[in-house]
């Protein structure tokens, strides 16, 4: 199955964040299993990620390795959001693109959109 560019970049980053040591392009390719992209595609992706600041490339002439430039933040963010959820103040101190909306807000939106679509 063909991945889009963003998906391939995200998959490469996942491997690098999970890795306990820097990886060569070959090792990253092997990490994809049967669905592996071509090594040239992978090198292009790694170069793009390096330019974005997400990946570090070793200076070696042979056996070049790649590593995540920064450790991932997910666990820290999750615990931060969780602690705000517990105090009930998240909505009042942090603005998130996804908003602090739940299924009943989705229902309000759905009903309004259905009403508007019916009228059209």
């Amino acid at each position, binding site marked *: 199955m063909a991945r889009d560019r*963003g*998906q391939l*970049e*995200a998959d490469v*980053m*996942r491997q690098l*964040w999970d890795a306990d040591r820097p990886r060569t392009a070959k090792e990253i390719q092997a990490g994809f299993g049967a669905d592996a992209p071509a090594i040239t595609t992978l090198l292009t992706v790694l170069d793009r990620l390096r330019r*974005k*600041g*997400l990946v570090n490339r070793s200076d070696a002439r042979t056996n070049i390795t790649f590593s*995540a*430039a*920064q*450790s*991932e*933040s*997910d666990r*820290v*963010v*999750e615990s*931060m959001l969780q602690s*705000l959820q517990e*105090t*009930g*103040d998240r*909505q*009042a*101190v*942090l*603005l*998130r*693109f*996804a*908003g*602090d*909306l739940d*299924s*009943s*807000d*989705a229902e*309000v*939106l*759905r*009903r*309004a*959109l259905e*009403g*508007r*679509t019916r009228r059209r």
Partner: protein
Amino acid sequence: MMIIALALASYALIMLLVGPQVLTRGGWRIFRPRLCLTLWYSIFLSGVLAAVGSGAIGIWLGWRIQADQPSYGADLLATTFGFRPTPGLDTVVRVTGIVLGWAALAVAGALISLVATRAGELIGDQRRLRADLDALVARSGYRRELVDGLPVTYIAGRNSIACSLGGLRDGVIVSAAIDLALTAGERRAIIEHERAHQRGAHLIFSRLAVLNRACFPGVRAARELTRATALLIELIADDAAARRCDRTELISALTKLGADGQNATLSLRAERLALAA
């Protein structure tokens, strides 16, 4: 004076009961979020002012009944409602006035103390969050750029997060998952959404709603105000972002981020923007 106090108290009560009834009905509020939020807060703030005014007059009347003149209460009833002053009525009004005055003072004191405590907690949470986010950026930040004067910091992470602290000087934090999944135009749309939150001082509305709910935890109007604020500020920010950048980019960003089905409101927000075009 008593008539004014009663009228203000009645207005506050009517707004408390009628506001949620009117403002939670119909789909208009989804397509006119700014108008709906303005109405919510006009009703809320005028209701609060009316209640404060009524309480202040109540305290003042109680104080005058107690301290000013012995027959002030009976005179007040006589001039307001046409009661004939009698010695028995004078005592009853005097005692009732004193009790009501002190009760109003006690309620006002309790509410001020509650609001001050919750506001203090919110400020503490905000300070902690700012320190946490600074540490997060130092640990996981990998790129920083200025988008039309707004600092945007990208942090390493596989979850899709875009957030800000709401102040005009605060920047926006965007996770790598969004950086990788979206095009530059779509990312810009998200950043404009966050900018709209900051420019619209949306966090102030959220804080007022949270403080109001803390004062009246069981009251439907307070619950509905919190819920309406959370939804309406997102829709207002969507509309503002759609005006500042390409609407299709924002629709596309919302659709992509909502594609995993974990947050149904994202795709519905995209649908609303497409319908409103």
